């Protein structure tokens, strides 16, 4: 299996999302509050994963512009949830940097101004369910 394919499959595994369910309605991009800040738009995330171009995703501005508000996750009519794909790409980056999981108790001590806020917010949102 090619490295590109492996990466795409890893995104699908982390997110639990099947991008092939997407019907290209664009409701995710329609609902996104950070849309104008993003270079790759939420609905495009899906096709990037399908086309196995994870490298562009992890190097995108969007990764750190996404607020993890999960509006796209709530409103996606096809259960594709682009927010989860973005979240998964972000996790890949964090894992590559060797920053693994945290216990919630450790967080207050570890908080530093350099830590991307999205990581915390999305972690809380994700584990809330």
């Amino acid at each position, binding site marked *: 299996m090619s490295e590109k394919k492996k990466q795409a499959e890893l995104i699908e595994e982390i997110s639990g999302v099947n991008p092939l369910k997407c*019907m290209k309605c*664009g409701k995710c*991009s329609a*609902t996104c509050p950070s849309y104008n800040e993003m270079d790759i738009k939420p*609905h495009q995330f899906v096709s990037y994963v399908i086309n196995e171009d994870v490298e562009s995703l992890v190097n995108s501005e969007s990764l750190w512009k996404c607020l993890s508000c999960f509006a796209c996750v709530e409103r996606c009519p096809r259960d594709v949830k682009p927010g989860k794909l973005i979240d998964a790409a972000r996790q890949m980056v964090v894992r590559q940097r060797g920053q693994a999981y945290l216990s919630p108790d450790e967080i207050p001590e570890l908080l530093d101004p350099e830590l991307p806020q999205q990581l915390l917010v999305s972690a809380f949102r994700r584990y809330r369910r």
Partner: protein
Amino acid sequence: MQRIGVFVCHCGSNIAATVDVSKVAEMALMEPGVVHAEDYQYMCSEAGQAKIQDAIHEKKLSGIVVCSCSPRMHEATFRKAAERAGLNPYMVEIANIREHCSWIHKDMEEATKKAVILMRAAVAKVNLNTPLKPGESRVTKRALIIGGGIAGIQTALDIADAGYEVDIVEKTPSIGGRMSQLDKTFPTLDCSACILTPKMVEASAHEKIKIYTYSEVEKVSGFVGDFTVDIRKKARSVDMDKCTGCGVCQEKCPSKKAPSEFNRGLNNRSAIYTPFAQAIPNVPVIDREACIKFKTGKCGICSKVCQAGAIDYEQKDEIITEKYGAIVVATGFDTINLDKYDEYAYSQSKDVITSLELERVMNAAGPTHGHLERLSDGKAPKEMVFIQCVGSRCSDDRGKPYCSKICCMYTAKHAMLIRDKYPDVNVTVFYIDVRTPGKNFDEFYRRAVEQYGVNYIKGQVGKVIPQPDGKLLVQGSDLLDNKQILKEADMVVLATAIEPNPDVRKIATMLTASIDTNNFLTEAHAKLRPVESPTAGIFLSGVCQGPKDIPETVAQAGAAAVKAIGLLAKDKLLTNPCTAHSDELLCNGCSTCENVCPYGAITYEDKEVNDHGIREVRRLAVVNSALCQGCGACTVACPSGAMDLQGFSNRQIIAEVDAICR
């Protein structure tokens, strides 16, 4: 000993590509009783059937096995072929080596092994088959139509024109259904009422048609050709024979706060009401929940003003029991509840409406007398936004997984009509796909774009935000320009998904007709029997079977009528001889079978039996073979093994299992 012939079908390459058919035929010759075996490209073809018939004559066959497709497909074909060659049709068995084998397997060797096993089981069964003779049952030459919309009306007219009695049962106070609520109809833009009301009048005036409005089907028993149905005629509180339809009671009624069902709750009606001016029958009903007389005992104004003396507060529900040979379901649809779609602000703003509500707004008899205006402040809109696929094509738990089919066309219609009548109103349609497969449909949609300047944007709307000044801020995607759009609108129209009328579940249960996961009634065959339910004698008309527009509904209504007429034209029906019967010497009268029988076919009687010289009276199960459908539930449930099914006896089933395990 039987003399059995085995016929293995290639089904073109459907079977032969995965199963070694000649091997199956070769192996068949080694089975007990088999005296002839051959394979052929298409057994169901005339040539294939001729091979079977020739072999029956030449080899003096007493039973045959056809290894082919599902018995649902061609069992009847092969039984008829065998019968023409002088063989009892119940001496034919099908081994399903297509759906059960070749279509679901890839490995030829394994698939061939399985096909041989399926063939063996069928041969083992035929060895124990005995000739069976079907009985006869009578046909009541009257049809029942459940639902009085365009589907029900059309089916009723077609059946009645063929000379048979038809009863229509309609739940609401008038026939007409959804179509009576529509303003104009695509793709010709003719007024809905102008084409529907003549049909309503024709149905009500037809000497063969009886209409029960404000009535519901309460109970169904019996079977194809001989259904017995209880119809509840709800108390109208108005004598239908005396009422002249003058309408004074509705005018004078002081209680005018009940939401009008006909106008989708956009305005109110009186407690005594007819749903709309052209209602048939033109006899009002009293809504007892809203009526002051029924709530407080005081009032009685309608009774005082009625010159005909038709008001009857004492009227009670009435149950009518009637017999029918065929039943047609035409229960139609409703739009889905939008409570789960907060993002479109439907419950927050009066100016966010469904397309069916817009029909009422655009209609001259509607709440705004046909003027396009905002329902919040009555102002004329300048910017209108239409949102497609609201609740359709959803795989989440909020919407429906199917395409509602009619929305693309009615939205093009709405957009076109608004641009035509109010050229200063801008119309924007947010769409995912525009689906217009129908005669003159795409041309119609293109006219909306090219001739009327409707702005179609490819992309869904994410949210609608009501603004303090009463405007609606629409945030949507433009996927072709890769932009997020913010647009101020005065009105937003939601193309809301349609779903089968919720009552259909109850009706399907009464009819033992199957429904799918979306509550649409299932057809007997998706392609070849689209207007029949798998339950004999039940036919499907209109949206109860799947989303449809008016032309399709009318076409299907006619098709359902033809199928019903085909049944009513027969004097007698052959009944399935594969029914259950109880062995008197084994039955201990425990009632287990009676409890599991879904058709009410089993009763008990006290009978004197001679059990090896001992004469005594015992309580014994008796099967009414006219009611028994041969489902076999009783044979499985019977603890003493007394119940057995003809054609599927316990011995035959065990022989099949033995052959498989051999």
